[in-house]
């Protein structure tokens, strides 16, 4: 291995880490502002997790329901997030999402159309109106391909594929670079840069049952935390209600909410449509309470209220968990999701082609004939790096972030469809913020000692004589999180998890990766343990502190929402003695926004302005 002076150095004005939707959108904006932009992607370009997004991108275009407008989208988002969202972010998101979607069309995206030729929109959980622009059930692929094909023609963007970022480098407290390695050669690389935008997604791989791919190891959380940034709201981890449960090898793979949006219903092993028993008072006025009314809604009756299967994800995931616990689950520990009896086969194949394909190929189930077996799967991090809403800058000067790796926008629970719009809006804003920041600066300097420390840490697992298997350690971690930090939590379990995480941290410090540095997944697995463990510990500590149940965070020892906890966010920061957790008061919302969030629907309908 080379010494510090021989490490390859690449210079950019801005480096974007992560090439999913948020990273690509951020890079496009930086390039548009004239910045030399490096786009660091862990996999090949176009393979990032955005490609898995299925149902659609939420934006109040009003193409299908003309009454819809940004205020109702904002209100839905705040209610879905249990009012813990950052108010300004939720406002920016709802206001800018339509333009960001139209911009994709300008760049060649081909969304499904309405009969009059406009972008079509579908229903989804928690959204009052059909609001999700979509392409069948492969919307994420359409978005990432559109952004990718647009980005490769921007002169100022250099794409660095199969490159993993490990550490952020600082110059007197401000961002100065990114340290990482090339998967292909195993060579180390140093990016010198004035600003970094993290767009690294969540940390779902800390759980075994997850819809996330191997890439989702909380790299951004780990790097930001080590560099002194704050994390917020990380106790809110979204369990998507419908993941595949059988066969075991596909357990956790996502089944789009679009199945329910297009009419699918949830049944227990008694054939009961159990969601009618789980309608919380807050949503009761807007939810159908009889099968008859729900069926009228499906038939297009606009006076009927929405079926309870379209309640927010936290509500549906908890209901499924309860049904299974009480012995009313399906043979493989889930419940049944039935669209076969609700819609004709050709409708299902046209609107849900990849679900049809996925069940047919992986589970041998024809969803046009038989119900699917589904259960909750760790899907999304509402919490993440704490940033300023308008610039997306963290408290570390020069460190920006966008998309899932940021906290605040989604509050305690995210509505389906609000992640694709989040990554477009805040990817764009992060790009703007970083470009504005970088324009004013001269290139930073990086001292050699910092680089040497990164180098030592990176190559240590290769150089050790012996040590634990990195794959076994990650499995251990997943067992701990599945068992103790799942949908329903309690103090004793969370304390056990913390003790287990301490043990795993010690093990991870001795991990051994056999083989050379050239394309060595064992080494990569060893290196991702650090961000994974930081993420897992942050979630556990925050979950322990929040003594209430709100949104995706359920404490069986503290049931129900508590008013005093609505006034605080849980903040995580690296201290001198390890991880520090604190409560921080939330500022009062601007009056205008509070008025919208608490208004009745009638007061907001048709008030787009």
């Amino acid at each position: 291995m080379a010494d510090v002076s021989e490490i390859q150095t690449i210079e950019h004005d801005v480096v974007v880490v992560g090439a999913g939707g948020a990273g690509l959108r951020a890079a496009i904006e930086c390039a548009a502002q004239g910045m030399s932009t490096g786009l660091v992607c862990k996999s090949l370009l176009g393979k990032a997790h955005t490609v898995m997004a299925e149902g659609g991108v939420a934006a109040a275009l009003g193409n299908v329901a003309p009454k819809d407008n940004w205020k109702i989208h904002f209100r839905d988002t705040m209610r879905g997030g249990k009012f813990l969202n950052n108010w300004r972010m939720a406002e920016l998101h709802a206001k800018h999402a339509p333009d960001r979607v139209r911009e994709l069309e300008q760049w060649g995206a081909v969304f499904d159309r309405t009969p009059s030729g406009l972008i079509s929109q579908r229903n989804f959980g928690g959204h009052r109106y059909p609001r999700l622009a979509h392409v069948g059930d492969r919307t994420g692929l359409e978005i990432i391909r559109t952004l990718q094909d647009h980005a490769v023609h921007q002169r100022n963007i250099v794409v660095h594929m199969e490159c993993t970022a490990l550490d952020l480098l600082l110059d007197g407290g401000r961002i100065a670079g990114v340290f990482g390695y090339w998967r292909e050669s195993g060579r180390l690389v140093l990016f010198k840069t004035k600003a970094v935008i993290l767009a690294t997604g969540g940390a779902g791989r800390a759980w075994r049952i997850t819809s996330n791919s191997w890439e989702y190891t909380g790299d951004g959380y780990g790097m930001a935390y080590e560099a002194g940034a704050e994390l917020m709201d990380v106790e809110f981890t979204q369990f998507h209600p419908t993941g595949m449960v059988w066969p075991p090898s596909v357990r956790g793979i996502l089944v789009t909410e679009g199945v329910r949006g297009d009419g699918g219903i949830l049944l227990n092993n008694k054939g009961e449509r159990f969601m009618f028993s789980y309608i919380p008072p807050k949503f009761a006025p807007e939810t159908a309470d009889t099968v008859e009314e729900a069926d009228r809604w499906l038939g297009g009756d606009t006076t009927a209220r929405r079926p309870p299967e379209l309640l927010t994800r936290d509500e549906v995931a908890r209901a499924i968990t309860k049904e299974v616990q009480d012995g009313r689950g399906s043979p493989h520990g889930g419940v049944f999701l039935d669209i076969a009896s609700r819609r004709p086969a050709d409708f299902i194949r046209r609107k849900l082609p990849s679900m049809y394909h996925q069940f047919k190929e992986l589970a041998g189930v024809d969803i046009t004939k038989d119900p699917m077996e589904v259960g909750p799967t760790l899907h999304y991090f509402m919490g993440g790096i704490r940033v300023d809403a308008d610039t997306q800058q963290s408290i570390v000067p020069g460190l920006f972030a966008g998309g899932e790796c940021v906290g605040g926008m989604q509050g305690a629970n995210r509505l389906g469809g609000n992640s694709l719009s989040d990554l477009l809006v805040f990817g764009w804003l992060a790009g703007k913020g970083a470009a504005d920041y970088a324009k004013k600066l001269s290139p930073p300097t990086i001292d050699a000692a910092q680089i040497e420390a990164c180098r030592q840490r990176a190559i240590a697992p290769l150089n050790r004589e012996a040590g634990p298997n990195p794959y076994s350690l990650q499995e251990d971690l997943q067992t701990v999180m599945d068992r103790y930090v799942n949908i329903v939590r309690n103090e004793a379990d969370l304390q056990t998890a913390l003790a287990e995480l301490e043990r795993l941290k010690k093990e991870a410090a001795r991990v051994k990766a056999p083989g050379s540095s050239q394309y060595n997944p064992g080494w990569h697995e060893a290196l991702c343990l650090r961000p994974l463990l930081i993420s897992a510990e942050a979630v556990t500590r925050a979950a322990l502190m929040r003594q209430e149940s709100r949104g995706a965070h359920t404490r069986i020892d503290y049931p129900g929402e508590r008013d005093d906890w609505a006034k605080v966010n849980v903040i995580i920061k690296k201290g001198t003695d390890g991880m520090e957790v604190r409560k921080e008061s939330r500022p009062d919302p601007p009056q205008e926004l509070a008025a919208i969030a608490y208004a009745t629907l009638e007061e907001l309908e048709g008030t787009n302005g």
Partner: protein
Amino acid sequence: MAERTFRVWRGNKTGGDFTEYRVDVDEGMVVLDVILRIQAQQANDLAVRWNCKAGKCGSCSTEINGKPKLACMTRMNTFDPQETITVQPVRTFPVIKDLVTDVSWNFEQNKRIPPFQPKPRDADGHYRMMQSDVDRIQEFRKCIECYLCQDVCHVLRDHNRKDKFVGPRFMIRLASLEMHPLDCADRIPAIRDEFGSGMCNITKCCTDVCPENIGITDNGIIPLKERVVDRYYDPVAWLMRKIFGAGEKPGTKA
């Protein structure tokens, strides 16, 4: 659970060979599950690309018992119970290590394709396209860039004419632009001269291996070939151009 025999190609650009692994296989597993189990338990540094494990990202293309496939969508119960499974890297692109190949050539081709050029919006700020007019390009846009079509294309695989032909993946990318109702660019000359539409001899091997069942040849490549023929080899059009000049773009749009 049953024990199965896997032969996995191990090596790098300087050479390599098959290594045999005995591995326990559970119900419902796909080939990628088995590869990852070998990696976790027996060969920590076994290199393989994968991401979504659900046939949506196109990362895990390999040749399984000689057939180009996505490892994540190939179920173990499609093989005979005693059958040895052989897994090797795709042949058309150079090996980096084990099952991972250097597919960067494909990304270079994508950059060469003239980008989407939209016409102006309607007066009310909308674009209007009928669903029936976009169905066919939505088919092309299902492509997950697994490059299995590139792997089996004779022009690329057997004749290594990467200098003459962009391959089926990028022919359908060109088709998705050429048939886009909003697009104004003219790529027909480039499709003939730079991207090599004439090189394809329509054996349809690409269509056969497409995991998204895109009608690559029938719906994408053949219509592009027809547009090239109409432009360059239609005697009436040729005469019209001679008389009136080539200023106006011929009606190649959807």
